[in-house]
């Protein structure tokens, strides 16, 4: 990297940052007062423990279980449908027909392009509000995300065992099941777990549009300024995410 180039780039970056800082509209801050902020903080520091579990099925505990269920099922649907698509999109499986993997990649890119929130809004319209809409939204979005990564792993797999099998007369499907797939399976399994972590986070938010899970009660609590409830939900979300992350990190370590 030339010195002059880095100087020019830094100069442009500084100008851009300065411009953004100076031109952003701060008018919303007029309504912000320190005392109200203090009230929020005090409210957040007093979690409403009664809401944690009351056996009604509308408490934090049951909703968190539901959120995790949405994530698991969504990830499963995503992985299940992403696998065949990733096989269509892997370049190294098609020696001459370049068009097929290109088409597969295109489909995956399109699926990935829409934010999960949009899928959630569509599926809430299609199947009605509820956890199932969340499952479908996470599933469809994750087809694109996982499919791309699956295909990349497949393309990066080594050709040695495949060539060895082919040279002794194995058919396409035999090389597929005895060389290609076993090679990439551990990495792909760990990718699925990573995406389960992501899915738990999104399942917690998709409730904002009515797709089930903990999101809906949270947005109601925020709108009602019921900070005690907000606080207990946030604690639950953070704890759940941390626990799921650490479990999946442990499993992934064992996979490698």
């Amino acid at each position: 990297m030339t010195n002059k180039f880095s100087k020019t780039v830094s100069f442009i970056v500084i100008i851009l940052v300065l411009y953004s800082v100076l031109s952003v509209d701060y008018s919303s801050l007029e309504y912000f007062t320190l005392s109200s902020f203090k009230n929020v903080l005090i409210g957040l520091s007093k979690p409403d423990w009664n809401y944690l579990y009351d056996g009604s099925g509308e408490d934090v505990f049951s909703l968190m279980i539901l959120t995790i269920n949405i994530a698991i099922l969504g990830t499963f649907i995503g992985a299940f449908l992403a696998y065949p698509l990733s096989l269509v999109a892997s370049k190294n499986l098609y020696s001459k027909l370049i068009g097929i993997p290109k088409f597969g990649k295109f489909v995956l890119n399109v699926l990935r392009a829409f934010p999960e929130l949009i899928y959630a809004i569509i599926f809430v319209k299609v199947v009605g509000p509820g956890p199932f809409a969340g499952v479908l939204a996470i599933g469809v979005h994750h087809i694109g995300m996982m499919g791309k990564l699956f295909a990349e792993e497949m393309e990066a797999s080594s050709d040695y065992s495949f060539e060895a099998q082919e040279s002794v007369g194995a058919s396409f499907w035999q090389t597929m099941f005895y060389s290609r797939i076993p090679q990439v399976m551990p990495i792909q399994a760990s990718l699925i777990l990573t995406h389960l972590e992501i899915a738990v986070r999104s399942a917690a938010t998709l409730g904002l549009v009515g797709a089930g899970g903990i999101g809906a009660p949270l947005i109601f609590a925020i709108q009602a300024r019921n900070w005690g409830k907000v606080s207990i939900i946030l604690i639950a979300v953070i704890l759940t995410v941390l626990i799921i992350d650490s479990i999946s990190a442990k499993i992934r370590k064992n996979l490698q």
Partner: protein
Amino acid sequence: MKLKDTIHRDFPKNLLIVLIILALLFISVINTGVDLMEVFRNSDQMWRFLSRFLKPDFSYFPNIIKPMIQTIKMSIYGTFLGVITGLPIAFLGSMIFTKNKTITNIAKFIMGVVRTIPSLLLAAILVAIFGIGEFTGVMTIAIFTFGMTSQLFYQAIDTIEVGAVEAQESVGANKIKVAFYAILPQIVNQIASYTLYAFEVNIRASTVLGYVGAGGIGLIMNTSLGLMRYDRVSLVILTIFVLVFIVDGLSGYLRRKLS
């Protein structure tokens, strides 16, 4: 591969894993009330959406130029704030810099907690506190970027060559000097590349942020969704697409130049 790793010896273990996964799926299916037929019964809804969606309303484009610039500004500002605050805590989260387990663990805990809060929830809370507006979006992006980049920065610091740090310490440099002259020069490229990455992610997230009223192009998308103007929604998504594509290309170019 040893003999005990072969499929036959492992069979009970694999069977157990499969059973656990099946049980989890079974519970999930019951709990979420999955009804696949529903999808097919109401699929005309989806086609109605798609048919409008596939015809973007290009005549609306002039109206979204301003919010788009707003979004870019918010992302730049938010990324900047997030990186500026994320860097010091990343230093505190690395044993190489602090040599103190307590400080490191506290810093790591803060990073972990901030990172686990989903950005949409964060935006919703900040909107409730600060009200609807551009600055709220900036704050959300800043906190989100803080969580994302501090993690990456501290991993970068943890993998540096410690020789330079030790050399400076041995001649009596204080912590600040060590940070600026021994650690920072080694990770400056990574900082730049992670910052660019965060900026990309933030531009992508702007669709979602508008949903809760945090300003920018997402706000336009939200109102269009409310009015069921899916042709405009698709225009907004297309625009963000192009924007991300440009930012992607630009940051890819810069990152190649950097390495």
